């Protein structure tokens, strides 16, 4: 038996993403953000997207290109404080923004990846984020239903991959990538290096290959991946 080869080109990797799709994108700040996949999506010009991402990056980086290009109808996120454009678009009504507590966003995504319908939590129960959410009593305590949050596509950045789609993340670049890499119908990973099958130690793989559909090796790391000097 051999494991399937899922390597492809950047263009083919994202070619099926069509107008109106829901796309989750890994990353927390720079680490783990798939800047090249995002750039390809900008070049493809796909519109009316629902984007699920921890943050909106900073001006001139990552998701900001999609916002500037008018491709995002809706953003599900936890924090957009470093992107003035995102806040402006939200305030102007040019983009719907749904805020979620950060760990609950991670758990909702993970629940979708884990084939669960949702989780029960009291996070935010005393806040406006808790308003209107379905309540369930568990052990005498009121909890909120947080529904699983899946997507049509996930865009993932890995430090290393193999052709089967096993992924390893570097440092704090894990963040939302492992959960998102389980939670979309089609999971697309860019990797800084694609090593031959068997070169990644089976014990150190963060995302097992069966979760991943497509792997693209980056030919170069653009400036967006570098240390940000503020």
């Amino acid at each position, binding site marked *: *038996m*051999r*494991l*399937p080869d899922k390597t492809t080109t950047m263009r083919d990797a994202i070619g099926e993403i069509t107008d109106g799709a829901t796309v989750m994108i890994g990353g927390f700040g720079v680490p783990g953000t798939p800047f090249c996949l995002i750039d390809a999506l900008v070049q493809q010009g796909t519109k009316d997207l629902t984007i699920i991402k921890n943050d909106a990056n900073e001006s001139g980086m990552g998701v900001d290109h999609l916002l500037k290009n008018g491709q995002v109808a809706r953003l599900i996120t936890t924090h957009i404080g470093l992107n003035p454009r995102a806040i402006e678009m939200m305030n102007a009504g040019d983009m719907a923004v749904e805020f979620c507590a950060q760990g609950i966003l991670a758990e909702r995504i*993970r629940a*979708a*990846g*884990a*084939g*669960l319908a949702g989780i029960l939590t009291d996070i935010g129960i005393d806040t406006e984020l808790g308003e209107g959410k379905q309540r369930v009593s568990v052990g005498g305590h009121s909890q909120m239903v947080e529904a699983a949050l899946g997507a049509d596509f996930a865009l993932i950045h890995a430090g290393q991959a*193999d*052709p*089967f789609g*096993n992924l390893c993340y570097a440092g704090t670049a894990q963040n939302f990538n492992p959960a998102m890499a*389980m*939670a979309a119908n089609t999971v697309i990973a860019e990797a800084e290096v694609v090593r*031959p*099958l*068997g070169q*990644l130690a*089976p*014990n150190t*793989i963060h995302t*097992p*290959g*069966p*979760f991943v559909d497509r792997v693209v090796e980056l030919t170069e790391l653009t400036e967006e991946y570098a240390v940000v000097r503020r």
Partner: protein
Amino acid sequence: MVARAARDIQSGMTVNLGIGLPTQVIEHIAADMQVCLHSENGIAGIGPAQPYDAADRNLIDAGGAYVSPVAGTSYFDSAVSFALVRGGRLDLTMLGAFQVSMHGDLANWKIPGLFTPGAGGGMELAQKAKQVIVLTTHTDRKGRSKLVQECTLPLTARGCVARIFTDMAVIDVTPKGFALCEIAAGLTTDDVIKATDAPLAVPRGKIPTF
């Protein structure tokens, strides 16, 4: 029967082979086949079974057999392993059975008063794998059919089984019930009908043998 079942595995699939007969399917998968074998204890990319002398004490499948890795194997925990099963990433599972009904209901975890091993990961495999195939003897040790109109034993999952491989036949579960597809060499259609405790649709013409 096991060799025949192996032919239902298609290129590119992620497959879970349950404890018992299904585990033997691995021996009939071609070496150049592109397939990823999963076991729910936390491994994707299972290679051939290992003799005791060559076994890694930390490398078993869910049935406790010592297995080997292949190039590209990954290990993970039980939560991730069942995320794979429930999340739609498992293309096919082959499971054993106590009973299968003509509606595709599966019972394989409890014989009240006699034997209650527990379902293990069977409920999730049966309920969430994209395709569920059962491998079983056609009748139990007392000669009673395992293919029935309604399961009398506690269910593992309802309406999940698509196809059954037995020592006597290959039988599909259709919206109308059991349908005979293939028959073991040397047996007649009547043999299979007699051993099956539910209506069995028999196609016209010659039935393929295996």
